[in-house]
């Protein structure tokens, strides 16, 4: 099962390497990992996507909690939640027909063209991983020059919040 784990941790040097090291040392896999400071600069918020059996996920959350720098964590997939990922994609865009087609496709997926040259577009697209995959599949793979994905960020729905 795929799980999205949100972690609130001390914003200290080396905190990220403790998490990454834990995953490699214990053989857990990381599908994606994002991290940035929160409104309180002493805290970082990490969103980690992983896969495993219930027993493995239980161990992952326990081992993460055991890290001294981890203040709190929440398995978002245990309740209703929102996940978002952002992609920046550079696409070859030559000729009116192709340029129109790409723009139409970007509109359908609610993406924005944020950089234009006479031969390329950069499109910004936000959504679930599935939506982003869908957009990539809808494009002609030969036209894709570069893909940058942020990895998943997530938050619980409703009033439930991960706070100190």
């Amino acid at each position: 099962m795929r799980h999205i784990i949100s972690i609130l941790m001390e914003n200290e040097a080396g905190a990220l390497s403790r998490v990454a090291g834990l995953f490699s040392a214990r053989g857990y896999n990381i599908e994606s990992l994002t991290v940035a400071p929160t409104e309180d600069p002493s805290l970082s918020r990490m969103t980690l996507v992983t896969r495993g059996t219930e027993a493995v996920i239980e161990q992952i959350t326990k081992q993460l909690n055991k890290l001294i720098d981890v203040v709190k964590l929440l398995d978002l997939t245990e309740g209703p939640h929102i996940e978002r990922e952002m992609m920046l994609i550079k696409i070859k865009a030559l000729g009116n027909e192709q340029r129109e087609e790409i723009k139409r496709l970007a509109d359908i997926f609610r993406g924005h063209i944020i950089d234009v040259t006479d031969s390329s577009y950069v499109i910004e697209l936000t959504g679930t991983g599935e939506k982003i995959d869908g957009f990539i599949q809808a494009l002609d793979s030969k036209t894709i020059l570069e893909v940058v994905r942020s990895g998943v960020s997530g938050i619980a729905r409703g009033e439930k919040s991960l706070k100190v």
Partner: protein
Amino acid sequence: MELTGAEILVRCLKDEGVKYVFGYPGGAVLHIYDALYKQDDVQHILVRHEQGAAHAADGYARSTGKPGVVLVTSGPGATNAVTGIATAYMDSIPLVIITGQVATPAIGSDAFQEVDSVGITRPCVKHNFLVKDVKDLATTIKKAFYIATTGRPGPVVVDVPKDVTAHKTDYAYPKSVALRSYKPVVEGHPGQIKKAVEIILAAKRPMIYSGGGVILGEASESLTEFTRLLGYPITNTLMGLGAYPATDKQFIGMLGMHGTYEANMAMHDCDALIAIGARFDDRVVGKVELFSPGSKKIHIDIDPASISKSVRVDVPIVGSVGNVLKEMIKLIKTAKKRPDTAALKSWWKQIDEWRTKDCLRYDHKSKLIKPQYVLETLYKLTKGDAFITSDVGQHQMWAAQFYKFDKPRRWINSGGLGTMGFGLPSAMGVQLAHPKSTVCCVTGEASIIMCIQELSTCKQYGLPIKIINLNNRYMGMVRQWQEFFYKGRYSHSYMDALPDFVKLAESFGHVGMKIEKPADVEPALKEALKLKDRLVFMDFITDQTENVYPMIEAGKAHNQMHLSPERELA
């Protein structure tokens, strides 16, 4: 008044109540060594290799319950200590290790004697710190002691760059420290405790399985009261020996790969398993799927991550074992339900029948010295009251089987990491902590060589350790596995260039003895134990072919033990 970082560090140790620091000087820690020189409160013990410093501090910690303190320089000083740090980590021993570091502007420049100590030690410490500002030093040291000694204990490394030890600031040692991200749970959940007590009192074939957590949590008295109150059989893990008196009739021996027949059979057949401060290690459990298949399992542990890590349990209780046991004792005393005496009687009858296998019996008539005989005699002569440290291998298992520990903190061995070389340096820490007590290091000729340089430290500080070297001219446990599982191809397990241990000991200024006949074992041990102020190195030339029994092969069940050849025929 402003102090330098080095002075602050030493003052912190003094204010923390540290008596001994085990260490080795070097460039990055010279300011600290200068500060040590100028005071008498904290005594520095100079080892001969940084691994020895970590093991010595570890032995000090295991035998006293207080944190051990290590001071080493940057680079090789730190990397040499890593084996000792990992050893302490695996057995949850509280250590504070101060590693020197190159000056902050040089960090990351591949400077002389620079390594990323925080990075290297990260997977084998409870936590670690790099102190970049002298203003943070005192608080960081306080945090290090706090983290090392609370919850599930463990080693904490504090990496201190050289310039930080030279910078000055005002000194104030915090009385206490609180971390929002670290709050170990010590009180067990009352609902879970109640559920557990119901299972415990309803059991027909109960079994208590307790581990090192009981010793770390200072809960031996509570465990003994709990066990006697119920009248249930109890087994201890290798790390838990001494937590319950081994000479008590309810004690049925150590369990696991080299545990007793009765303990392993009872583990397999019980209907309620009460795990207390034990972590279901693979050497205890064997094959998870076949482990104690018919039992309801209760697990008390201070570390939530220990629970259901390998074996799923029915009633987990997170908390300090002492607190939880006290709560359980209260509930059991006031409960209407009583243990089922009829069922318990027939369970004990079964266990006593297993006991008649006499699974530890060995050949007493041999013309060669049997290692078990040496340990039995040592036990008899020291009246079971010595501190025993050990290295790793056959001798370690025999010591665990044949020396009956009635008190906690008397049995000092590297259980989790299995570190050869641990025995002698750890004995130094034990002897310093208990100067009047008999401290014996049970070892083998392969293990002892790994930290033999510490004989020099023993001389310098007059540590009268008794080294019991069970010399079979093999890496015995490796040889045993090669005999069993590799058709006797003794690949590189033979020690055919051994030193003359008597002369070796003498060259370090100690007493050496070589014992070659069974009849000489007792007189030699008596003589050695009489030499109260000398280190005696006893080189016992033992039977090369002796194996440790019983034995459960890795990946087998508890009821699939090998017994010694004569017992399997019986």
